[in-house]
C-alpha cells in the first residue's frame, strides 16, 4: 500500500540528522567494546589477575562515547551553521541559532566568507521579494479594472487565479469553479483532454459562451480565448472578453424567432391539413397536369413545415433548450415516418431515391422525430445539390458500436475548403448562394441533433462528383443502461459521450 508522505522542511533536517548520527556512534562504540570483551573472554586472555583491566575498559567506555559525540558536533559545526543560514533564506521558521560569521575562529578559518556570501545572497533575495509582491499586486489590480476576465489554471485544472470580471464561483469545497456553459462537444474540458494528449502549446477560441442559463439574472456572454502550455505553473490561461452587449440582442432575436416560428405553424396546419383532405376528395376531379401541381403544393407545404421545425430546433439549441427523448428504434421505422414525403419530394424534382436497409440491422437509441428531421435535411440537401435524374442512395450499416446511415448523391459535390465550414450556422458555400436557395441551418441543427444522441455526423465529398453524408448513431444495446439510468433523456448519454448538451447543468471545471 502506498503511503502518502508529507514533504519535510529544511528546518526539520538537523535534529533528525544529529539524532541519527549520535545513535550511530553510541551503538558502534558499544558493539566494538562488547565484541572486544567477548574475544578476550573466549580466548581466555583475561585471567582473574587481570580483572582490573576489565574494570578500566568498562570505565573508559562512557568517556569514549562522550569524546566521539564531541568530535561529531565539532566536525558537523560548519554544516550546522550553513544549514542555519539556508533555513533563514528559505523563509522557514528558524530552528537553529543563526551563526555569527565574525567570530575570530571563522575569520581565521575562512569560513566567514562562506557564511557572508549566503547572508548577502539572502539579503538581496529579501529585497527582491517586496518588489515582486508589489508588481503582482499592481498587475492584479489592473486586471480587476478591465472588463475582460482572466483565469489561470494549474495542471490539475484548478483555478489558481481569477480576476474580478471572471465568471467564477466558489463551490462547497471552497474550490473556485468556472461558470461557463459550452455548446456542443466543443467544451473546455474536451479541448484540455485533447491538449493533454497531443499538444505542448495550443490555443483555442470559443464565441458566445454564456455563464448562466437563459432567464437567470446577470447572464453574461463571453468570447473565450484559451492558451495551453504543458507543464507550466499556469498550464491553462483563459482570457474572456465580455460581449454581453452585442450577444444579448441576438438572444432576444432568438426569442422572437421562436415565437414567430410557432405562429407560422398555425397556417401550415391548415394548409397541410386541407391538402391532405382534398387530395382524396379531388382525386377524380383533377385532370392533366393538375395532380402533379397538387403534389407540388403538398411537397412545398411539407418542406415549409420542415424548415419551421429546423428554425424552432435551432433556436432551442442555441438557447440550450433542445432535449431529446431517446428510445429503442429501428432505422427502417424512423425512415418510414418520412418515407412518403421524401418519395414525393424526390419525384417532384426528378430524382431517383433508392433506400435499402439490411434486415439484420441492430436497433438504435434515437428520438424518432428528430432523426427523421435529420434524414429529411440530408435528403433535401442531396436533392438540392444534385442534378436532374440523379440517384440519391440511402443506406445503413454497422460500424463498431454505431449504425452508420449514409445519404449519397452524385451531384455537384464540394471542395475540401467548404467541407470544414459546412456545419456552421448560416454557412452557405459560395456556389450554393448563387444557385440554390436555403437558409444554412439544416446541417447546423442536424449536427446538433446527432451529437445530442451521442453520435457523429460526417461528410465525404469530391468536387464535381457528389457527396456522402453519414450519420452514426449508437446501437441501442450499447447505451441501454445509461438511458435507463437517465430516464431516457439524452443526458446520461451525453455526459458520458461527447459532453454535448447538458440541459440545465452548468459546466464545472
Amino acid at each position, binding site marked *: 500500500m502506498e503511503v502518502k508522505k508529507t514533504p519535510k522542511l529544511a528546518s526539520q533536517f538537523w535534529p533528525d540528522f544529529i539524532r541519527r548520527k549520535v545513535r550511530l556512534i553510541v551503538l558502534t562504540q558499544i558493539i566494538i567494546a562488547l565484541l572486544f570483551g567477548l574475544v578476550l573472554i573466549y580466548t581466555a586472555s583475561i585471567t582473574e589477575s587481570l580483572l582490573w583491566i576489565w574494570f578500566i575498559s568498562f570505565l573508559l567506555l562512557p568517556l569514549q562515547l562522550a569524546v566521539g559525540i564531541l568530535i561529531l558536533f565539532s566536525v558537523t559545526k560548519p554544516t550546522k551553521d550553513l544549514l542555519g543560514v539556508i533555513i533563514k533564506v528559505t523563509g522557514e521558521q528558524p530552528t537553529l541559532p543563526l551563526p555569527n560569521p565574525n567570530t575570530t575562529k571563522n575569520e581565521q578559518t575562512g569560513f566567514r566568507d562562506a557564511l557572508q556570501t549566503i547572508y548577502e545572497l539572502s539579503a538581496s533575495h529579501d529585497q527582491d521579494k517586496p518588489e515582486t509582491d508589489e508588481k503582482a499586486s499592481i498587475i492584479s489590480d489592473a486586471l480587476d479594472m478591465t472588463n475582460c476576465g482572466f483565469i489561470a489554471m494549474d495542471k490539475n485544472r484548478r483555478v489558481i487565479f481569477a480576476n474580478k470580471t471572471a465568471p467564477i464561483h466558489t463551490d462547497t469545497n471552497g474550490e473556485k469553479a468556472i461558470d461557463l456553459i459550452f455548446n456542443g462537444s466543443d467544451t473546455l474540458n474536451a479541448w484540455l483532454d485533447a491538449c493533454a494528449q497531443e499538444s505542448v502549446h495550443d490555443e483555442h477560441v470559443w464565441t458566445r459562451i454564456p455563464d448562466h442559463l437563459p432567464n437567470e439574472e446577470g447572464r453574461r456572454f463571453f468570447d473565450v480565448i484559451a492558451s495551453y502550455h504543458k507543464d507550466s505553473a499556469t498550464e491553462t490561461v483563459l482570457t474572456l472578453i465580455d460581449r454581453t452587449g452585442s450577444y444579448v440582442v441576438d438572444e432576444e432575436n432568438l426569442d422572437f424567432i421562436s415565437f414567430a416560428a410557432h405562429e407560422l405553424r398555425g397556417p401550415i396546419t*391548415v394548409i*397541410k*391539413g386541407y391538402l*391532405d*383532405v382534398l387530395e382524396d376528395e379531388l382525386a377524380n376531379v383533377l385532370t392533366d397536369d393538375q395532380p402533379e401541381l397538387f403534389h407540388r403544393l403538398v411537397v412545398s407545404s411539407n418542406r415549409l413545415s420542415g424548415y419551421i421545425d429546423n428554425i424552432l430546433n435551432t433556436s432551442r439549441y442555441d438557447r440550450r433548450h433542445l432535449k431529446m427523448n431517446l428510445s429503442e428504434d429501428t432505422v427502417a421505422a424512423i425512415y418510414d415516418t418520412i418515407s412518403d414525403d421524401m418519395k414525393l419530394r424526390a419525384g417532384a424534382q426528378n430524382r431517383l431515391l433508392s433506400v435499402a436497409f439490411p434486415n439484420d440491422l441492430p436497433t438504435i437509441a434515437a428520438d424518432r422525430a428528430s432523426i427523421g428531421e435529420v434524414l429529411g435535411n440530408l435528403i433535401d440537401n442531396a436533392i438540392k445539390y444534385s442534378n436532374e435524374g440523379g440517384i440519391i442512395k440511402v443506406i445503413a450499416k454497422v460500424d463498431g458500436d454505431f449504425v452508420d446511415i449514409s445519404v449519397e448523391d452524385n451531384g455537384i459535390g464540394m471542395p475540401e475548403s467548404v467541407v470544414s465550414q459546412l456545419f456552421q450556422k448560416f454557412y452557405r458555400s459560395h456556389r450554393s448562394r448563387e444557385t440554390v436557395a436555403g437558409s444554412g441551418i439544416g446541417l447546423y441543427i442536424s449536427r446538433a441533433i446527432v451529437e445530442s444522441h451521442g453520435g457523429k455526423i460526417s461528410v465525404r465529398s469530391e468536387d464535381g462528383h457528389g457527396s456522402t453524408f453519414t450519420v452514426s448513431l449508437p446501437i441501442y444495446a450499447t447505451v441501454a443502461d445509461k438511458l435507463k439510468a437517465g430516464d431516457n433523456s439524452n443526458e446520461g448519454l451525453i455526459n458520458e459521450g461527447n459532453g454535448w448538451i447538458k440541459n440545465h447543468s452548468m459546466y464545472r471545471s
Partner: protein
Amino acid sequence: MAIKTILCIEDDRFIGEMYVRSLKKAGYEVDWVVDGNDGLITARNKQYDVILLDVMLPERRGTEILDALRGGKEDLIPKTHVVVLTNFQQDDESRISMEKHADAYLIKAEITPKKLISVIEKLEDNSITP
C-alpha cells in the same frame, strides 16, 4: 367501447372547422368550443369519448383544463380519451405533466385530419380494457 362522441376545444377557426369537417365526415358526433372556460364546462357536463384539447386557449389554458379534469384526487372524466394538440411546444415540465394525464400529445402542424382520425381509431383499438 366504440368512439362516437368527440369534443374539440380549439380557438383557431380554420383549424377547428377543418377537424370538425373531417371528423363528421368520418361519422363521429363532434361538438366544438373555442374558449377554455366553455371547454371545461362542456367537458364536465357531457361525457365524451374523446376530447381534442388545444393548449394556447383564451380564458383558460389547455393545461389548466386538463389539471381541473384529471389533476385532483378523482378523475372527473375516467371514460374519456384526451388528445392534446398544440403548435407551441411546451417546456419539459408542462409537457410531461400533460402527457401524464393525456392519451396523446401531438403537434398540430404534423397532424393532418387523416392522421388525426387514425390516431382516434388507434385509441379505440387500445381501449378494449377489462
